[in-house]
């Protein structure tokens, strides 16, 4: 039978310890043990199936119940479940139909759990035993079709599905299992952006964590708080802080007995990452860094001693920071300085650590230029950039973004930093960047974007709505004079405050992208991604 064959495949494919874990989870419902992603997914799926089939015919579940009764009687070890299933299935399948129809009692908890387990197994079987095709029994067909649909549909990232209650519930359950506090949204959200989270800075996520936190490492808690309060801002700074915190985590980590470092450490990192994304949604650069670390961890050979492995991981993190961030900025400055000629008037927006570095280097190399710093509310990051440049001795002018078309005729080049570069050539950066690129294009001023390659991401986006970040709307309340007319904005039903963080700039407005690999046109980003993947 297809089921038994599938299960055979299962017992070969899955290690026994994972099956043991599955059973434990199913039997002790909300124990909060850590599970792998597959198991959670499977659990969620079969719970959905369970609800769906409650409305469907009773026949199939009861057949399963019969199967499970036989297995429950048998010893609970999963290895023996397979032969136990093999025997009762052909026997009971036909015999159980008629007598079962008579009994429709309220199912006991054990039976429900058993049903769920069996359904899970059939799903696994139907997914993996697809070659055995036609052998599938009629009962597994209604379950098989929704299964086959599910792997085809790609799942959207959770942070952009806030208006979907099912996704929210899933997220809440996942966080509960990981013992990560769930942050609630604050205030009225503008309808176009209702699919994004909007948090208030006054309610940090750490309020709900008990001290001492058992699941989340204290350096991660500190990092999360720094993110949510805006103490660490800017994609390079955030990535570097994240990697340092991970170094600390690895330092304090000790492998529990009967566990492998490579698998367990990755599992340990998942609740940290959920926690950090609750504090502030992860940036593309952070995502790439995490992917890299996870890959390194899982590549650690199992016979490696713990001390050795930890040392190796720390070295790997250090080299990542050094190569992708520090040395990359050196290489980018080298290329960018070729593009700065004497007498240039350079426009910069906001505070990008990379652009500031380039300008400081160029100034040291005795290039004669002056800088116009454009700034915007409510973050007013340009002031920080202004401070750094003036300290170096560079001649600067400071304007707000509303004066952009006034000063642009004087400008010879525009230098912009980027938060991420998307696979279709779009540049994702601080809100206001696309406005600057648009106006610069209209005045025929070349726009140069500086971005390290580790910020390149595989995502594709054509507008700023689908995936963005909403900052605390209370930031918009305070004006220059300190008067707060909007203090009671929550009481006015028709008023919404929108504080966007990012926007996307199309590649036609960008003339040149300077990366550590060299100068490339904006349309060549997917080529670089492809070359990088081939290297790795």
């Amino acid at each position, binding site marked *: 039978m297809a089921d038994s064959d599938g299960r055979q495949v299962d017992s070969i494919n899955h290690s026994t310890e994972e099956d043991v874990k599955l059973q434990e989870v199913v039997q002790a419902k909300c124990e909060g043990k850590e599970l792998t992603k597959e198991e959670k997914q499977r659990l969620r799926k079969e719970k959905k199936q369970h609800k769906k089939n409650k409305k469907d015919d009773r026949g199939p579940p009861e057949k399963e119940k019969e199967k499970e009764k036989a297995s429950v009687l048998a010893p609970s070890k999963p290895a023996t479940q397979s032969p136990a299933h093999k025997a009762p299935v052909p026997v009971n399948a036909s015999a159980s139909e008629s007598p079962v129809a008579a009994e429709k009692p309220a199912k006991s908890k054990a039976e429900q759990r058993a049903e769920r387990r069996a359904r899970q197994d059939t799903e696994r079987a139907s997914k993996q035993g697809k070659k055995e095709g036609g052998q599938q029994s009629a009962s597994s067909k209604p379950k098989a079709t929704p299964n086959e649909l599910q792997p085809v549909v790609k799942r959207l990232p959770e942070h952009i599905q806030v208006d979907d209650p099912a996704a929210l519930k899933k997220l809440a359950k996942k966080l509960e299992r990981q013992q990560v506090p769930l942050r609630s949204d604050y205030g009225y959200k503008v309808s176009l952006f209702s699919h994004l989270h909007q948090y208030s800075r006054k309610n940090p996520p750490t309020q709900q964590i008990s001290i001492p936190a058992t699941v989340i490492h204290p350096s991660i808690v500190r990092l999360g708080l720094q993110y949510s309060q805006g103490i660490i801002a800017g994609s390079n700074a955030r990535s570097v802080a994240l990697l340092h915190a991970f170094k600390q985590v690895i330092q304090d980590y000790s492998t529990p007995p009967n566990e492998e470092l490579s698998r367990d450490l990755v599992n340990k990192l998942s609740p940290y990452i959920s926690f950090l994304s609750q504090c502030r949604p992860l940036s593309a650069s952070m995502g790439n860094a995490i992917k890299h670390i996870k890959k390194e961890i899982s590549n650690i050979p199992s016979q490696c001693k713990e001390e050795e492995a930890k040392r190796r991981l720390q070295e790997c993190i250090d080299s990542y920071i050094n190569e992708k961030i520090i040395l990359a900025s050196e290489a980018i400055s080298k290329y960018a300085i070729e593009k700065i000629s004497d007498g240039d008037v350079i426009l910069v927006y906001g505070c990008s650590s990379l652009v500031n570095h380039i300008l400081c280097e160029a100034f040291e190399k005795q290039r004669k230029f002056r800088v116009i710093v454009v700034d915007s509310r409510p973050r007013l990051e340009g002031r920080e950039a202004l401070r750094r440049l003036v300290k170096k001795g560079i001649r600067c002018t400071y304007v707000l973004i509303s004066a952009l078309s006034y000063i642009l005729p004087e400008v010879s080049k525009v230098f912009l930093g980027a938060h991420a570069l998307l696979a279709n050539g779009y540049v994702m950066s601080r809100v206001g960047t696309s406005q600057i690129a648009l106006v610069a294009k209209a005045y025929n001023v*070349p726009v*140069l974007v500086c971005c390290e390659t580790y910020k390149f991401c595989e995502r594709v986006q054509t507008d700023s709505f689908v995936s963005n970040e909403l900052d605390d709307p209370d930031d918009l309340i305070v004006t220059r004079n300190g008067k707060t007319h909007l203090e009671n904005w929550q009481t006015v039903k028709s008023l919404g405050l929108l504080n966007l963080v990012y926007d996307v700039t199309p590649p036609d407005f960008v*003339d040149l992208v300077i990366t550590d*690999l*060299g100068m*490339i*046109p904006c*349309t*060549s980003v997917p*080529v670089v991604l492809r070359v990088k993947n081939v290297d790795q």
Partner: protein
Amino acid sequence: LDEYLRIREDPDVASAVAAIRSLLEFLKREQSETILGLRENMTKAIHRLEETDSSVAVSSGGELFLRFISLTSLEHPDLSQCKNVMIERGELFLKKISLSRGKVGKLCHTFIKDGAKILTHSSSRVVLKVLENAAADNKRFTVYVTESQPDSAGKLMAQKLCNLNIPVTVVLDAAVGYIMEKVDLVIVGAEGVVESGGVINKIGTYQMAVCSKAHNKPFYVVAESFKFVRLYPLNQQDVPDRFKYKADILKTVKDLNQEHPMIDYTPPSLITLLFTDLGVLTPSAVSDELIKLYL
């Protein structure tokens, strides 16, 4: 060096090819002991060539040649063996690029339809080859050539086309806007193809491109692959001076503002397609090819 000047006399050979051939001769004759010395000598030779004839093609050809021969894993302990390997590769490279013009011609002539009116700028051997192929294919078309001052290269081109029995008219550089409504397509050669997908060509190409964009006529560029160069100009000012003016002028004249540049830069947004021996490319694909070549 004399070798180079001698080869240059041959009108059918592109300056870059001549440069590469002379570099090969140099390689055969030079006497250095170490690989580093060899490389240094080669770079010096390339600089000397650039000084005599400052064109983009020479610099790109030289750089590509150097890359091509030194890309081999030079594990041979014996220097003379190494040199032989390099010379072999050099010959191979030379052979490949001599064939490239033919390849481009074959690719492009299918885009010329019967009864077409073509506009071209100044004198380019590649465009000539393309038109030759099209004529051999029994297609009827007329050609308008701009005079292309200050060296009147357009007249030379017209002469050559006449010899091929193609009806040709010479127009003033200033008449490009006037003639644009009559033509069906514009084909120009290139001295260099830059990383952004734009081209560097004889002065006057840029305005022809702008005009053709305004009239919605396709603007085609034909170039061999050895003309790809690692420059990325943002605008006309950004093209380095050593390419804009002839080498002897650079050495003698102090105030360059009085001189007229010989080349200009056409940005990729104005170019429809590029025909190269690597295939028919869009301007954004040029960067793709360059990344493959250089990375």
